[in-house]
């Protein structure tokens, strides 16, 4: 184990009933190699920022005032403004809020839950919930395949468990809000979410990662596991809106059983390092995955999406579309893998990745990977990298729209074409002005689009 692997962990134990889980993950963490640029899945993303960032788990920090701040003592007005800017107008949510890794009961609204929905922290789980968590935790995200899943599992002190009971239809989404603020000492934070949607149930989850505006110095490693049982449906949103010095390595791992449907949407601004691994495992026939995502790094930010869809059984479908706009000297990585196993006949799978580079120094490394071992499938994939479409720009200008405004409109439209498709209109309405603002420094240039 390298020094860096040692500094990211502590000896503090999580819930005793998860001790064996924690030990197993700790062992996998110390036995796996730290990824380098020679590791295929980390070829275009350097972990140097994490190696040199001095991130430590909270319990490893001992000095008094640092400890107090590390425990989540932050100015109320800072938090208030973060809460306000992350509020999704018109969407009634069940909020679970964390500030610098610590659960905030006062900011959360989990006291009254819709019938058929269970929601608890691991640390407060009753014995039935403990049994549920033990059954599913780590069953979707594989610590032996993802070194940061092992880190997260070993460092697990707490997490959020959501269960939507059989045939329950919940309209209001559960929103897990992960807030970080600037800390005196750079912190390594573990974030974990486990969602089980039981047979025939239908629910929505919004995971929103936000921060205060000052320079961030937290490193969040996170794992979300989604279990979709037979005929269930889950709308899953993941919004990464943190300040640009954020460091994050996170994974979303979903398991779809028979005829389950996962409809997900990802949005990511760039960070110092921001890496997201999305794994969807079609394990039951007739499962369907609809996945759209956008990434928008600027300045010298970095963002990396590695998606992997496993088609292990017949008659499943995947429709995956990711789009990115990369500006300034930012860098994006997109690796989209669809793996169709030998028995997965009649699979329908599509993957599209389109990128716009808005500066000469911007960079995208995109690689769609289709691996097919079945012979009766329909699959398509494609990746493009381009500048703004010259003809569209001309068209807008022939109608009197200024070149500057036309560019803003087209950049916005390129991304908004996916935002338009999200199921919850309130989320689309919330995102549009944020996106428009990203492409237009001058409010005059965004007045027609959001």
């Amino acid at each position, binding site marked *: 184990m390298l020094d860096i692997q040692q500094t990211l962990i502590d000896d503090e134990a999580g819930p005793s009933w998860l001790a064996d889980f924690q030990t197993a993950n700790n062992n996998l963490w110390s036995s796996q190699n730290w990824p380098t640029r020679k590791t295929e899945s980390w070829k275009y993303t350097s972990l140097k920022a994490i190696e040199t960032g001095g991130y430590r788990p909270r319990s490893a920090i001992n000095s008094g005032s640092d400890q107090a701040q590390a425990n989540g003592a932050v100015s109320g007005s800072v938090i208030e403004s973060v809460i306000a800017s992350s509020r999704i107008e018109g969407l009634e949510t069940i909020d679970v809020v964390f500030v610098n890794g610590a659960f905030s009961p006062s900011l959360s609204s989990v006291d009254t839950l819709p019938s058929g929905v269970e929601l608890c922290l691991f640390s407060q789980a009753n014995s039935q919930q403990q049994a549920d968590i033990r059954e599913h935790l780590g069953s979707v995200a594989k610590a032996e395949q993802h070194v940061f899943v092992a880190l997260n599992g070993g460092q697990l002190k707490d997490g959020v468990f959501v269960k939507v009971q059989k045939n329950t239809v919940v309209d209001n989404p559960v929103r897990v809000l992960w807030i970080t603020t600037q800390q005196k000492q750079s912190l390594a934070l573990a974030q974990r979410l486990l969602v089980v949607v039981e047979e025939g149930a239908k629910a929505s989850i919004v995971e929103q990662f936000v921060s205060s505006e000052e320079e961030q110095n937290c490193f969040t490693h996170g794992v979300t596991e989604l279990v979709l049982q037979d005929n269930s449906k889950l709308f899953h949103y993941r919004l990464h809106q943190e300040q640009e010095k954020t460091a994050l390595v996170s994974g979303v791992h979903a398991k779809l059983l028979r005829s389950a449907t996962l409809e997900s949407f990802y949005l990511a601004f760039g960070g110092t390092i921001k890496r997201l691994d999305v794994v969807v495992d079609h394990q039951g026939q007739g499962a369907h995955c609809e996945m759209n995502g956008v990434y928008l790094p600027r300045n010298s930010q970095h963002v990396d999406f590695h998606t992997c869809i496993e088609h292990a059984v017949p008659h499943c479908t995947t429709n995956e579309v990711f789009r990115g706009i990369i500006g300034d000297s930012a860098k994006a990585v997109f690796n989209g893998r669809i793996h169709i196993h030998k028995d997965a006949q009649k699979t329908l799978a599509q993957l599209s990745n389109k990128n716009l580079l808005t500066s000469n120094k911007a960079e995208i490394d995109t690689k769609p990977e289709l691996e097919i071992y079945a012979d009766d499938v329909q699959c398509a994939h494609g990746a493009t990298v381009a500048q703004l*479409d*010259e*003809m*569209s720009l*001309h*068209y*807008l*200008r*022939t*109608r*009197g*729209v*200024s*070149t500057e*405004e*036309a560019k803003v*409109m*087209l950049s*916005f*439209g*390129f*991304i*908004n*074409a*996916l*935002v*338009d498709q999200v199921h919850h209109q309130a989320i689309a309405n919330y995102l549009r002005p944020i996106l428009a603002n990203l492409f237009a420094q001058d409010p005059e240039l965004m007045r*027609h*689009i959001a």
Partner: protein
Amino acid sequence: MLSIQNLHANVDDKHILKGLNLEIKPGEVHAIMGPNGSGKSTLGHVLSGRDGYEVTDGAVQFLEKDLLEMETEERAREGLFLAFQYPVEIPGVSNMEFLKASVDAVRAHRGEDALDSVAFMKKAREFCKAVDLNQDFLKRGVNEGFSGGEKKRNEIMQMMLLQPRLAILDETDSGLDIDALQVVAEGVNSLRAADRSFIVVTHYQRLLNYIQPDYVHVLAGGKIVKSGGKELALELEEKGYGWLENEVA
């Protein structure tokens, strides 16, 4: 209104327009006809200022100003409108957002107050109705998923909103069925006015049954080889273009 003298233009280093002359006075409708590859569409693109269409010689005045010195958007704001042969699809930008941006830009240039959303929507709905476009089209992406005919009607609808001084219709009739053709022609005819002119670029005489031109020009080999009244269109319909090309040669 528009005066073109000895216009030469290249596309991808290929010499397309070779000394074109044209004078258009306020209120006139000019039809430009000609065989494929004669430079008809190039003329529209050059006048609209499209990148890659390089003017190598000649001059163009629009409303007494040097058109070739203006940016594309300035030309539009001054009152030049090009209805595209192939209108562009822009998913993610709604038709309404696009039209409002356009109308605001043109009105601001004319020193007129910006229309508020209510007044704008009223006009937009009115013109949608005039060209027989469902109002739902306003909410959809620009031309996204529109049929060929719907795209052309959307062009005419934009023209009605923008009230240009000179409109160039680049093969607006191509791909239209007879009903759509009539709708488009009615749209154009409703805008005919003493201070507004039209250039109707077309391959076929058919459209000219509905939009009566004052002059018909034949463009061949990059210049106008014959001009006449509307009866010239009928003659062309009957004889084709071959005899003219021979005449020029």
